[in-house]
């Protein structure tokens, strides 16, 4: 079994799976259970100034569900810890003592004045925690008070607060980024410029889940009124992956260590984040949906995968980053066509109707009077829609045309790369 031991910013953990700063890491009781289950580390639920904030005593969570009530997306309006600071500090100190091989990182959220950072960070560091995570991400509640995402949306604030944090501490500082921005690169760059040792992303996305179809109010509400929350869970993974890859490949931020967060539910999700540039990952929603025992599949699955691929964890990190580029650099001479395996086809006709209604009319419905779904190469643009909707795994595949003529365009397949930057139709093309 591949070794999953990780050193992230010099912080050791037996595996790259940390629980994200959130309800599962609110107190020693939960964290002890998590460590007993096998989690590599925790980012303790965000600490703030005393007196502690107050949470609503009504619905804090709601979900986007499939028909069999599988959780697809998850929304929350819980704020940072609502327990006295000293209680948290005492518990953190004890937990770190009891679990010396696990990572314990303190998430913090403080007002935008240097005195607060200078006052609280040394107190927290004294507990023996391995690092800080600066919460510049929470999009609800705290952002109304000028903290959380309100900081994370302004690169200058990120840099300023990161500098204060670095000045007031001697352990690694991770800056947690909000996805509620036009581009995640400037905030990441600001963290880097402020001296951050790493970034973690994504925090949750502004969201309202739905309305109540009886009362026609938003859902859920606290005494008839509701507020937007932060969206997470499987549904946000693609958004998070893009942001991780953007930081990993952008020349201004490349090389900045990343802790990947966003919808990680099984080991394959972790592979996605790691291959796109994260050095470790944080999990919350999946644990809140199934409990801490999911760690078993996460570690076991990742380890087996590394064995199969004959890779170390370090080798996997960033492996897929070179494959991510801008649209303008894609090869416009490359041609694929869909191919339907008639032995696997169950005749549902979904590929036909979606191609017919919404795409390129490139799949038959009837051949010689018999129900049969075949790709019409002279119409197929290779869009992958049929592959995406087919209910049968591997029934429809995309196959590259390597020679001859594309029956759709009538043009010979060229082995030369042709990017938009050099395409004859591009008035701004660069010529050699």
């Amino acid at each position, binding site marked *: 079994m591949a070794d999953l031991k990780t050193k992230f910013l010099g912080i050791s953990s037996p595996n790259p799976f940390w629980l994200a700063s959130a309800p599962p890491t609110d107190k020693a009781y939960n964290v002890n259970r998590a460590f007993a289950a096998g989690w590599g580390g925790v980012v303790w639920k965000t600490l703030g100034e005393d007196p502690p904030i107050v949470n609503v005593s009504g619905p804090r969570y709601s979900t986007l569900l499939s*028909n*069999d009530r599988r959780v697809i997306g998850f929304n929350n309006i819980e704020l940072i810890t609502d327990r006295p600071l000293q209680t948290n500090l005492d518990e953190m100190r004890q937990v770190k003592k009891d679990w010396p091989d696990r990572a314990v990182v303190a998430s913090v959220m403080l007002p935008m004045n240097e005195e607060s950072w200078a006052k609280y960070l040394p107190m927290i560091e004294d507990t023996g925690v391995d690092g800080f995570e600066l919460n510049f991400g929470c999009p609800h509640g705290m952002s109304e008070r000028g903290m959380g995402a309100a900081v994370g949306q302004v690169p200058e604030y990120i840099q300023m607060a990161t500098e204060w944090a670095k000045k007031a501490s001697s352990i690694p500082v991770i800056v947690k980024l909000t996805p509620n921005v036009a581009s995640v690169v400037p905030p990441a760059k600001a963290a880097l410029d402020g001296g951050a040792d790493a970034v973690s992303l994504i925090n949750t996305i502004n969201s309202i889940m739905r309305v109540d179809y009886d009362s026609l109010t938003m859902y859920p509400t606290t005494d008839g009124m509701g507020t937007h929350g932060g969206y997470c869970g499987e549904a946000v993974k693609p958004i998070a992956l893009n942001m991780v890859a953007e930081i990993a490949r952008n020349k201004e931020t490349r090389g900045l260590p990343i802790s990947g967060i966003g919808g990680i539910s099984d080991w394959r999700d972790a592979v996605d984040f790691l291959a796109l540039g994260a050095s470790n990952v944080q999990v919350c929603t999946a644990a809140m949906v199934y409990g801490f025992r999911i760690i078993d599949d996460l570690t076991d699955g990742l380890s087996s995968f590394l064995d199969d691929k004959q890779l170390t964890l370090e080798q996997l990190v960033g492996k897929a980053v070179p494959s991510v580029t801008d649209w303008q650099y894609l090869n416009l001479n490359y041609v694929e066509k869909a191919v339907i395996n008639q032995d696997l086809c*169950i005749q*549902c*006709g979904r590929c036909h109707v979606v191609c017919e209604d919404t795409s390129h009319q490139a799949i038959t419905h009837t051949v010689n009077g018999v129900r049969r779904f075949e790709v019409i190469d002279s119409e197929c643009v290779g869009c992958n829609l049929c592959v995406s909707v087919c209910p*049968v795994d591997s029934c429809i595949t995309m196959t590259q045309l390597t020679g001859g003529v594309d029956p759709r365009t009538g043009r010979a397949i060229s082995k030369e790369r042709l990017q938009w930057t050099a395409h004859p139709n591009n008035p701004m093309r660069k010529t050699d």
Partner: protein
Amino acid sequence: MAGNAEIRAGRLSKAEIDDNFADLHPPLTRSEALIEADRCYFCYDAPCTTACPTGIDIPAFIQKIRSDNLRGSARTILSENIMGGMCARVCPTEVLCEEACVRNTHEEKPVEIGLLQRYATDPVFEHSDQLFQRAVATGKKVAVVGGGPAGLSCAHRLAVLGHNVTIFNRDSKLGGLNEYGIAAYKAIDDFAQTEVDYILSIGGIEVRNNLMLGVNFGLEDLRQEYDAVFLGVGLALSNNLGVEGEDLDGVVNAIEYIAKLRQAADKSTLPVGRKIVVIGGGMTAIDVAVQSKRLGAEEVHMVYRRGPEQMSASVFEQALAQTSGVTLHHWASPARILGDDFVTGVEFDVDRSDGGVRLDADVVFKAIGQRMDGNGLASLASESGRFIVDEHQKTSSDKVWAGGDCVVGGNDLTVSAVQHGKIAAISIDRTLRNR
């Protein structure tokens, strides 16, 4: 069946019988329905819809279940098949929609279309939710002869289209085989009458019960008095075995016993034999065999002259008989029925070298098919005792349409009868509007 001490009521307690006649397929809960609905692939030009004799847009109604739009789902079903409630209970789905389901190819387990159809339609009947509205009255009058599925389907569609309908029904209740023939555990809680009430609630349908064609009225009277006539008279007479001993006490037409069973307020009061032989291989044979067993008969033998593949009862029905404790015998024809006053047994010719087989019996049920009571209908062209109709269910006679089991191609299924009635109504409507 009087006089033979072996034929008596109370072989089982009332509680046991109630249990034996509970819903064969209990309805789905909301959770079950949502999960099952999620299995539907929403096929294009769906094979299940093609396989449904009434052409219900099955993916569309299942999609509406998924979104909790049950009223819309029921409308999708009932607008093609007004007896979608009964068909959800009695259709041999395993040889119709569910056999065509592409999930069979994928995983050998079709979507439970019948149960989903019941889930979608049950609330409509429970709350008498009227989903249809009558068109502007046409002033035309149509006579429907027969109050079974074909007649009721025709009557409902005609009423929706704005015509006034009179149903002439030979029984004291409407419903035909739904009321008098279907096995009791397939249509519990008087569902047949609930459905009849729903159909009539559209308005514009007058019902005249206890009237026999050829006895109380004639076809010519109807042709004179009405703008069109629909015949859904079914197959009212039972076929005979034509063997020695057929008139012994204890030899009974299966459909008559089933009708009695369906009408019994308390099934534990029904006399049932100890050893029963059922002759036939269709749904009626299965129904009488299984119900006899569930009433407490000790031994039930079902004997068919050909093999299991030739049985018109579906594989599911045959399995139901076997799991209910009925012994199936194939390739055996009755040679004679034994007994002096009462039946004591049946002797069979068997296609085997060791000769005939004898089964003891105190009741013998004949379930070898029915034929039409053609009284008063000789003027219509027919073939093998059934009316010849065109693709619009039109008979050879001016102003007369027909459907259900009494026409060539009738196949003993409620769903087919409903489709015949619907097609006839649409054709009658076009004719009356000169379109």
